[in-house]
């Protein structure tokens, strides 16, 4: 019968060699493989993040320090033919750019997918020129606010959020540099 030499052994002493029975060994490997294959997860679900924890209005009972409001990217997707990217600082509009909208909805096995590559490229360009938190050591992320009308289908919202998250930046975490999304997305309530 086949065996495995596990080494060792000395003169006059009891041998450290022992033989492993190959048949139960192979059986064990086979059973482990079968178990892992049966319990394996082949379909991969993922998530896109949206944060509702955004700075709110100041409390009237506390004295506030005069802090310059940060620039926030507002993305308007109410029009069927264009997106509007607006950088706002507080209530003041800094810049406003229109991006042509081409809805190319694809459906595979019931799952819909829509990409907005032109929008993603424009957001990247805008962040490169106007983003407030571009340094790798800066822990804060730029804020993006999504404006939709009430009838927009969810698949389009995900398409736009996906386009926003395509812009990545470097972030230093514990001495290592990681690629993270440049924006934190939230919804406008209006």
């Amino acid at each position, binding site marked *: 019968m086949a065996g495995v030499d596990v080494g060792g052994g000395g003169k006059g002493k009891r041998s450290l060699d022992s033989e492993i029975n190959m048949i139960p060994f*192979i059986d064990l490997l086979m059973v482990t493989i079968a178990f892992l294959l049966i319990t394996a997860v082949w379909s991969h*679900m*993922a998530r896109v993040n949206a944060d509702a924890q955004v700075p709110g209005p100041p409390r009237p009972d506390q004295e506030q320090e005069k802090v310059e409001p940060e620039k926030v990217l507002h993305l308007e997707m109410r029009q069927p033919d264009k997106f509007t990217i607006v950088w706002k600082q507080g209530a003041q509009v800094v810049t406003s750019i229109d991006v042509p909208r081409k809805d190319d909805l694809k459906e595979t096995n019931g799952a*819909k997918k829509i990409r907005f590559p032109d929008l993603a490229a424009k957001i990247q360009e805008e962040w490169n020129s106007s983003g407030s938190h571009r340094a790798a050591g800066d822990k804060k992320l730029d804020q993006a606010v999504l404006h*939709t*009308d009430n009838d927009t*289908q*969810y698949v389009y919202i995900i398409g736009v959020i996906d386009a926003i998250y395509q812009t990545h930046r470097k972030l230093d975490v514990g001495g290592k540099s990681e690629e993270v999304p440049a924006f934190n997305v939230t*919804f406008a309530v209006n």
Partner: protein
Amino acid sequence: MPVHQPGRRLMHFVPLEFVHKKVTGHGGRATNAGLSLTSMIDFLIVVVVFLLMTFSASGETPPAKGIHLPEAENTLDMIDAPMVAINGSQILVDGAAAGNTHAIEDAKRLQRIEELFNTLKGKRELWTQLHPGKPFPGVVVLQVDQDVPAIVVKSTFQTAAFAGFPNVSFMVGNIPKSK
């Protein structure tokens, strides 16, 4: 009578000659093939290691019945959090009914979904009791059907935030990046 090693007996007495040759291995290519045990065990161990590395003990939460999730490229890994499922008509929290979407669609305005709010608030309070002294993560995962209108998504998002879950994630199908 001397004792000697027994020879092969199985399939030795097949009357048809061509069948006999075939089964005993004479006159043709042998049906058995040698296999290197070392290589086979190496292969099996590599397969076991690969499967163990890709093994997920928590498994994966499949989308609720009647929900088609959209797909996205720039995604994050799933996390363990309360699951709010929204199909064409119902809102479910971890499988239990917590509201109806028709009322929101008919009202055509952003609103707090009371049933969902109470369910999520109950979950938050339960978590706080079970983990005293720990900060509440406030994470909730939304499984939303791809055709649900934005008013329902925004109302659910706002309700979750009001109930103490400001960190909302949308569950999607993961697709590889196109570039």
